[in-house]
């Protein structure tokens, strides 16, 4: 058994066969057992296995994209549970993007932000206000409100407005550090929510506690995107852009200066890094991812109200980052996926199951103890366990290891040999 595992660790071929077999088996499982959430989760788990293989990066990406865009949606589409699966997958995508945004702020730049959901709210409300009759309460132009066609532009606008909000928040707030910063951002998150909650008087802009309803579905080439199966692909595209951006920024001058600021502010400054600018960019980029996904979220839900943007949401996103591994892109993706799925699927499934048992008279579980009500406790427990056993997260951040041949100047060697041969 051990030798088999070792072989699996070393041989690409064995890994390929194993991964292929796994994907086929779990796909068939979901294909025939449409109601089985377990089968759905097992398919998603194949992505983790894929990450653990030694395949070249490009191959990993190709297989991953194939599984996410073709295999998983296809095998899930055979039964009635399709919409719910896709709904979960869409939300996972939204949360992954947000967690990646927060990871830039907390994981890379080391700025503890407890009000991150505010930027999500700003993105959501931007689209919601301008695409519904809400906007006509305070702006009177013939072209308002915008139609579902504008959704695509609004993804970008939402990102930009959230980024601006990030900078505006950052300018006063970045004077304080550490715990103080956490408290100030927490306050900011609550302020944004309360402002949206109360901005229905004197002019009704946000709809107040009632929220905004009948947000138009996005349209593309006259086709309306109104179910989770379609939103899933929209989210995938935005998410792909986010992942591309963070992975590349991370290994650049900017990414290094974020990490330097996190590790030692004084030394970072002495090395020529503009402290305030570097932090503001981290805030802006993190916020913009969140804002973009906010637009998608409001279009998908077709209804938003301030209760979607509570402190608990900010904490949840932070949990994703910490659980997965601060500063680690694969870790944060895993953390966000785990937390979202746990929330939406596992806890509700277990609750349903226990309720069924109670109804059947097998056990007697008072409703107050149902797992979905104990969400926070279970989260807390997970965090405590993670802190004990994986203090750096499930997939801790790794340093970029540069191979020797990339770094030793080959051209100099060549020139030298040439002069010798002359």
């Amino acid at each position, binding site marked *: 058994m051990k030798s088999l595992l070792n072989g699996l660790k070393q041989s690409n071929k064995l890994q390929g066969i194993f991964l292929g077999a796994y994907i086929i088996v779990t796909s068939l499982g979901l294909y025939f057992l449409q109601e089985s959430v377990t089968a759905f989760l097992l398919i998603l788990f194949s992505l983790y296995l894929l990450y653990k293989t030694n395949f070249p990066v490009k191959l990993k990406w190709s297989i991953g994209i194939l599984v996410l865009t073709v295999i998983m949606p296809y095998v899930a589409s055979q039964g009635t549970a399709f919409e719910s699966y896709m709904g979960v997958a869409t939300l996972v995508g939204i949360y992954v993007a947000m967690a990646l945004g927060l990871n830039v702020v907390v994981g890379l730049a080391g700025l503890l932000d407890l009000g991150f959901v505010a930027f999500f709210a700003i993105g959501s409300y931007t689209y919601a206000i301008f695409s519904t009759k809400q906007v006509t309460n305070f702006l009177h132009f013939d072209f308002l409100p915008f139609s579902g066609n504008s959704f695509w532009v609004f993804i970008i606008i939402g990102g930009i407005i959230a980024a601006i909000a990030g900078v505006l928040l950052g300018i006063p707030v970045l004077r304080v550090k550490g715990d103080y910063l956490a408290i100030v951002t927490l306050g900011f998150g609550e302020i944004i929510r309360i402002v949206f909650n109360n901005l229905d008087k004197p002019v009704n802009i946000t709809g107040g506690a009632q929220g905004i309803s009948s947000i138009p579905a996005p349209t593309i080439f006259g086709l309306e995107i109104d179910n989770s199966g379609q939103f899933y692909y929209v989210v995938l595209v935005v998410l792909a852009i986010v992942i*591309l*951006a963070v992975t*590349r*920024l991370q290994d*650049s*001058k*900017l990414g*290094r*200066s974020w*990490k*330097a600021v996190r*590790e*030692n502010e*004084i*030394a*970072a*400054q*002495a*090395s*020529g*890094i*503009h*402290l305030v600018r570097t932090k503001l*960019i981290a805030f802006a980029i993190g916020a913009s991812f969140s804002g973009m996904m906010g637009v998608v979220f409001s279009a998908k839900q077709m209804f938003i109200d301030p209760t979607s943007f509570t402190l608990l949401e900010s904490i949840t996103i932070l949990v994703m980052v910490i659980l997965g591994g601060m500063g680690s892109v694969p870790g944060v993706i895993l953390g966000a996926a785990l937390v979202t799925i746990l929330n939406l699927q596992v806890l509700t499934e277990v609750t349903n199951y226990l309720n069924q048992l109670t109804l059947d008279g097998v056990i007697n579980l008072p409703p107050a103890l149902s797992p979905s009500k104990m969400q926070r406790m279970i989260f807390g427990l997970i965090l405590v366990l993670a802190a004990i056993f994986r203090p750096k997260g499930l997939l801790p*951040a790794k*340093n*970029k*290891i*540069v191979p020797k041949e*990339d*770094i*030793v*100047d080959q051209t100099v060697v060549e020139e030298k040999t040439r002069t010798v041969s002359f």
Partner: protein
Amino acid sequence: MLKTTNLTKSFGGLTAVNNVNIDIKEGSITAVIGPNGAGKTTFFNMITGVYTPSSGEIMLGNESLVGLKPHTVNKKGISRTFQNIRLFNSMTALENVMVGMHQHLKYGVFSTIFHLPKFKKAEKLAMREAYKWLEYVGLADVYNEEASSLSYGAQRRLEIARALASQPRILLLDEPAAGMNPKETKELTDLIYQMRDDLNLTIVLIEHDMKLVMEISEYLFVLDHGEKIAEGKPLEIRNNQKVIEAYLGKSAVTTA
């Protein structure tokens, strides 16, 4: 080249540096010495923009450095190391040096995200240059290691490599030999000479190791209680009454 006039810094009632006039010549190796609490590090912190002077002037050539932020001072050509080593601990040695090159990397967010040729070329060159700096200070073998995992002496040298990577004209070393064994100190001495000669650097160091200071520096400034009490060549300082007094106390002078 670097000149301070009546430089003063007070923290509340305490005057850490008081009316200090110092003139550092280009290409020299100059030491700033003095007992603990004499204001040496405060003096460095004012030059590098960490503290703003309460009064007085700092001139680099014809430019004033007063009121500049640390990253701007770095841009003007002054790099430094720290008394209590300040590395980017969880980053590799190579990345640490690459952070030092920050000012010289010219590409934007756009070319980063799309991996434009400009970005790739700049990063590749930067990596090679950073590696050369590591070679220069003798850390080539550990370029992929995390900074925190390096030995004490290696961490000190990594700080120097990072400072050199921003291509300074003046290098400020704050107690570079602190905690080093005699062999490491010897290597450091060689490195300091080498840097001055290879890179046309002006080197200013704060140091307590008198053997090192007397051997290496061409000119010394002595601070005590925030005031400059003496300046001169090593031999002059060695026999200066005030200096002996500051280090050993008044009675030492009278009995000697």
